[in-house]
């Protein structure tokens, strides 16, 4: 198999996303295991945190769609109340299907349909199209998936999704990223202010719209302490062009590291069996820190144990076998995607 074919085989079509860049910066091995070779714990369903976050995002998208007119301006009168009804209907219809595949973990049992309902009740009362940005805002689009290309020696495709793109009466754009968090602590706020992910969103949207994004913010929604409380974290305060570009360089650096891994896997196995190429990549990820480094300080980040801990804590020579036995392995072939 040629290197070009091998890269096509292993590299997912949505290879680079801001979320993945963020994860790769925290622990590169974790990124490679989850985003490149897609190791999933055996018998484990969808993560309740992710499932709850997805549902909350979809519910907010339903809300903004229902409470705005064709041009995105918020409807007056009983518009919000009607939209709230639609959101509740959406949750009632969708929750059982989504939650079917979720493994309830003992410390996450608080994530229930009742909590989501309560959270959305608060959200639909208090959220504003433009958050606490000054002026009058309309919705341009919500939850739109986009693909962008970053120029460079090797052009890089980045896939991303903005939760809410808004515009004010002067024509300025703003972007919102909604995040559910256990509590909106000062530490959470500080982390958001430096987010690589948000800087990449801003840069990519500026490139696409050909205009500076002067307003961007995180819309934090608390799901444990003071559930439903909203906090807006403004992001542009100290973000100059170099600060934003730095995040793009981080994305490029991650992409080139991913490519180096793919090349290494191809050098380890250059035959025609896709399964063996995939195993060569897995073996590199698990046993070669010069190609794929790891960060033990991230194992418990966000108070949630990394699902790959059992691999990292075993002898390197046994990791591949344990991974093959204890994880669901789907050897995907992206060549024809």
């Amino acid at each position: 198999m040629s290197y070009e074919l091998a890269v096509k085989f292993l590299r997912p079509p949505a290879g680079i996303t801001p979320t993945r860049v963020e994860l790769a910066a925290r622990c590169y091995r974790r990124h490679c295991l989850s985003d490149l070779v897609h190791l999933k714990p055996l018998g484990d369903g969808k993560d309740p945190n992710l499932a709850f976050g997805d549902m909350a995002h979809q519910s907010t998208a339903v809300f903004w769609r229902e409470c705005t007119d064709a041009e995105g301006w918020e409807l007056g009168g009983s518009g919000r109340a009607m939209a709230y009804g639609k959101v509740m209907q959406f949750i009632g219809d969708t929750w059982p299907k989504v939650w079917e595949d979720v493994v309830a973990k003992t410390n996450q049992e608080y994530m229930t349909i009742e909590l989501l309902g309560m959270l959305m009740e608060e959200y639909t009362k208090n959220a504003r199209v433009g958050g606490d940005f000054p002026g009058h805002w309309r919705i341009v689009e919500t939850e739109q998936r986009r693909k962008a290309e970053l120029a460079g020696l090797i052009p890089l495709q980045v896939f991303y999704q903005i939760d809410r793109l808004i515009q004010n009466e002067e024509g300025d754009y703003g972007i919102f990223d909604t995040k559910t968090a256990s509590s909106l602590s000062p530490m959470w706020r500080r982390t958001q202010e430096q987010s690589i992910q948000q800087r990449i969103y801003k840069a990519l949207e500026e490139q696409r719209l050909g205009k500076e994004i002067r307003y961007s913010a995180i819309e934090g929604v608390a799901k444990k302490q003071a559930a439903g409380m909203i906090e807006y974290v403004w992001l542009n305060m100290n973000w100059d062009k170099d600060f934003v570009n730095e995040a793009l360089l981080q994305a490029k650096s991650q992409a080139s590291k991913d490519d180096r891994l793919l090349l290494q896997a191809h050098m380890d196995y250059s035959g025609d069996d896709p399964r063996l190429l995939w195993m060569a990549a897995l073996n590199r990820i698990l046993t070669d820190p010069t190609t794929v480094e790891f960060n033990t300080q991230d194992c418990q980040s966000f108070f949630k144990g990394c699902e790959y801990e059992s691999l990292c804590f075993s002898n390197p020579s046994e990791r591949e076998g344990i991974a093959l036995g204890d994880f669901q392995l789907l050897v995907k072939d992206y060549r024809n995607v």
Partner: protein
Amino acid sequence: MSSERIQPGKSAIALGPSGSGKSHLIASALEMEGSGVLCLAQGNDELESYRRFYKDADFLITSEDAARLVKVDEKGKNPRLVSEKPFLIATFDDPDFFPSLDLWKATGLTSALSFLRLIVAATKERAAQGLAPQWNVLGLDTFSGIGDLANNSMCSELKVSVPPKARGDGGAQYYIGYKNKLNEVARACRAIRGYGTHWLASSHVQLKEAPETFSGQDVVAKEQQMAMFTGAFREMVPGFFDLVLYTGIDSQGKHYAQYQPDKFRSSKSRYKMEENALDAKGRIENDWPTINKAIK
């Protein structure tokens, strides 16, 4: 988009007293699957159960066997197993561990672990070439016997004839060391299983008394029959396997494996059981072809 699921082997442990059919399950798996490697402890205790495989087996029991089957490179490093026969049988013991006679040599566990690591390396090497495992079954008979070797090893290190009290001198060292050594054994077996070899183990059982700390409260603790290991490791044993069964022989002399027999013996299955696979008492014939067909 095409995709191919890489299939690991199945894993199961049979729990029960001597003569209840634990080795019978492993032997039936060797028979059905046509090849296998056996890691037996202590010593030759369990060897007799596998007599019918002798003619097609290589044995790794004596140092002469090791010299014949384990080859090293010209620098005397990188040992690898060279066995052409369908079955490979290795036994492990501590023949020179007699604390009463001041004889403390206990190398059975490290030998067993080295042997398992050789199997990991051989299996991994074949997998990298896209070849199926050389051995379809890994039998660990008994895992609790390997536990006895871990006990010998720790007692030898601490120069004590019986395990120290958990909260006494050397207690932490003994129990943590014992657990870590057996974890190493379990990890090697899990790695082998990952490449497609079924991992079947057996263990003797013992009664674990109900902890007094629970008595008098709403929760009533019960005594439990558990795998015969000491300390925290015995609680960990079921976690290594996807299927935990109790073995027995009924009044007609028929071997059975029991799933969820009663509240004193907890079993488990991460597999989906085929409908009607179990009889009214929750029993299934103790025979790998039957059990293998029933679990998915």
